[in-house]
């Protein structure tokens, strides 16, 4: 494979395109709303209308507006239909010829949900067929890889990423270029690249969507990273709960290998790179990099102390670069458009865009990609359309069990790594759950602590025992058996667990409790037992042993 052949594939694909393209979302959200049957009925309707020569029906990745699924878009008219049923198909096809309105409801492409987005990671999402590499190549895919391999030195690639200001999208926000530089510097006969697709945060589905909608983009990002740091093998560690993402990745890897875009001497350069899949088995802690590596090695996913960092001592003891799906998905765009282009987007310290998964009590649920620094109010109220049925936003939860609840009065905060940390939450991987007045914050804290208690791997005491004790105290509060002193104990215990746990899971597990204590303390106090019952409650201060695991 050389550049001419690559361009030819893209050109051939573009020429084969018919004048009208009907795109049907076949990502997981729409699929469970019967999108596959809608696609079939559209294909039948096109054939029956004798339009097969001019109209193509294509299955594409996520279009973002999951609450409107199944979604169908028509090019070049630029029409988006939502909640399409199989019965709507003939009228959608008839509308192509007559111009008469179809029976399906049209969504408004001029809504802020669409207009305020800046798609970089999601640029192909919902446009190309994720199961056809030719479609990705026609969208200029794999050209950045060629550019990197043939026209740049590994050091230049690292410099470009550093200059772009890209930071890890897994949540912690470590500068990506710095990480690549560390791995590149270490001398070793073998190095590995790992793509962390163990999206364990409940309420987050950005990575799943990227893998289902544009898997080649992630593979290309990994290959560029491998060239930059000198690695020859990569792993994608993907959650077992995402069967569709797994199958599309398998297809993508097979296609790339067949075209010589993965494998030996890629683009006739001395660079070899292969990618293997590793399927997770349901352990939240495996999102932590050292635990994830343990799991790839076939062991229990328990973290180990750092340093040594994976950059020096990773998989099987070799230097390993671990980045999140979204981080890798940014790489081809940065190589294509340059570091300066990327650095112009976003805020001073947080560059580029971020994909968020909007869910919970919000009108427009789905995926959005906005520049860093967009305010929460813009995202929730303008783009998300606020709480349905006239409800009021009470809090926004970001970062899953590791994040916190941001109160409604802080909605004008710009979204970037530092601002969210300042509010006691984290950027996290991008889950954003809106809560309204019906959601009790003590309940929410209890829910997350139950999650962390259950997911604690049990290796270090602060996390194993601490999360159980915090959970117990929260149960006590909820059952009305707690006294004011218990809230102070809760606060101190949370701080202790945060400061002394071994890995990110324990260090961040108290965040939902601490942030709700900080902003919604009256809700905790409302549960406290009345003074006359205080003596009785206080006598029951003995905490039971953590549950057997």
């Amino acid at each position: 494979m050389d550049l001419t052949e690559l361009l030819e594939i893209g050109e051939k694909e573009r020429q084969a395109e018919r004048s009208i393209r009907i795109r049907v979302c076949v990502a997981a959200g729409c699929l469970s709303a019967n999108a596959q049957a809608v696609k079939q009925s559209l294909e039948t309707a096109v054939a029956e209308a004798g339009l097969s020569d001019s109209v193509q029906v294509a299955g594409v990745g996520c279009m973002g507006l999951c609450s409107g699924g199944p979604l169908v878009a028509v090019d070049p008219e630029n029409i988006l239909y939502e909640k399409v049923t199989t019965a709507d198909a003939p009228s959608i096809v008839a509308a192509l010829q007559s111009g008469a309105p179809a029976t399906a409801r049209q969504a408004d492409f001029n809504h802020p949900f669409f207009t305020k987005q800046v798609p970089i990671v999601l640029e192909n999402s919902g446009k190309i067929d994720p199961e056809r590499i030719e479609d990705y190549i026609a969208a200029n895919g794999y050209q950045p890889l060629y550019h990197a391999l043939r026209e740049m030195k590994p050091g230049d690639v690292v410099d470009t990423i550093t200059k772009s200001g890209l930071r890890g999208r897994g949540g912690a926000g470590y500068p990506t270029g710095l990480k690549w530089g560390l791995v590149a510097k270490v001398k070793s006969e073998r190095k590995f690249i790992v793509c962390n697709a163990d999206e364990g945060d409940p309420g987050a589905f950005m990575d799943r969507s990227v893998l289902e909608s544009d898997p080649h983009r992630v593979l290309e990002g990994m290959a560029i990273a491998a060239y930059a740091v000198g690695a020859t093998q990569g792993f994608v560690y993907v959650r077992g709960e995402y069967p569709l993402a797994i199958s599309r990745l398998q297809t993508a890897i097979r296609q790339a290998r067949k075209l010589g875009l993965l494998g030996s001497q890629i683009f006739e350069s001395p660079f070899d790179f292969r990618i293997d899949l590793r399927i997770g088995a349901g352990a939240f802690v495996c999102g932590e990099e050292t635990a994830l590596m343990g799991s790839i090695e076939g062991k229990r996913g328990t973290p180990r102390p750092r340093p040594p960092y994976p950059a020096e001592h990773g998989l099987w003891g070799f230097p390993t670069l671990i980045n999140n799906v979204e981080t890798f998905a940014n790489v081809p765009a940065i190589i294509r458009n340059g570091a300066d282009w990327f650095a112009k987007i976003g805020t001073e310290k947080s560059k580029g865009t971020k994909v968020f998964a909007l869910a919970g009590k919000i009108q427009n649920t789905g995926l959005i990609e906005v520049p860093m620094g967009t305010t929460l109010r813009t995202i929730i109220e303008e783009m998300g359309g606020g709480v349905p049925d006239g409800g009021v936003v009470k809090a926004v939860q970001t970062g899953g069990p590791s994040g916190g609840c941001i109160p409604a009065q802080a909605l004008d905060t710009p979204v970037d790594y530092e601002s969210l940390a300042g509010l006691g939450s984290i950027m996290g991987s991008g889950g954003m759950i809106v809560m309204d007045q019906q959601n009790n914050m003590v309940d929410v804290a209890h829910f997350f602590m139950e999650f962390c208690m259950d997911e604690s791997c049990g290796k270090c005491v602060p996390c194993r025992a601490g999360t159980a004790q915090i959970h117990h105290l929260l149960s006590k509060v909820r059952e009305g058996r707690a006294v004011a002193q218990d809230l102070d104990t809760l606060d101190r215990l949370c701080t202790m667990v945060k400061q002394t746990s071994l890995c990110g899971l324990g260090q961040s597990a108290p965040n939902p409790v601490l942030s709700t204590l900080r902003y919604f303390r009256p809700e905790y106090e409302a549960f406290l037992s009345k003074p006359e019952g205080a003596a009785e409650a206080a006598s029951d201060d003995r905490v039971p042993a953590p549950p057997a695991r």
Partner: protein
Amino acid sequence: MLSVSRWDGPTQGVIMASATATAKTQGNGRIPTKGLAADNRQKMLAAAMKRHQYQADALIEVLHTAQELYGYLDPELLVYIAQGLKLPPSRVYGVATFYHFFSLKPKGRHTCVVCMGTACYVKGAATLVKTVEDYAKVRSGETRSDGSMSLIQARCIGACGIAPAVVLDGVVVGNQTPDSVVTHVKGWIENGSDRTA
């Protein structure tokens, strides 16, 4: 090559009770089938281990295959895998019990998985679980005594856009209410119906 005797110790706990402790790997890399019926499933499992060149790293992949084939991982199966990959059964048991995905108990004929991710939770997933528990008289994480169905809670299936979501025999359905879930479950329990969606 590690000798089989490495795991032939007194500390192995429950697994050893049914272990074929004296079984030895045959010289040509074939795995003894003692304790596990030599059927097609066993052949496919053996092939999966061979494909991974009997490497210890492949343990999780092999456990995935085994669970796919047998539905759950019983102790004999774990011992068989331990022999194949030349690992101590304690290690295999440790890994199998660490990850939520692996089940050491048989599942019911039907499974109802209620997603308890945050988005589903704030939209009432806990009520869904409670309703099914009360209706089907089965506790979450367990199987009905007649084996007709298992009720399972998932961490998050990533279908947050259509919360609350439930997976009925592998089919994801969104925007569920207590009534809609009970309607599905009712068919399984009362009529032995196989209809899922």
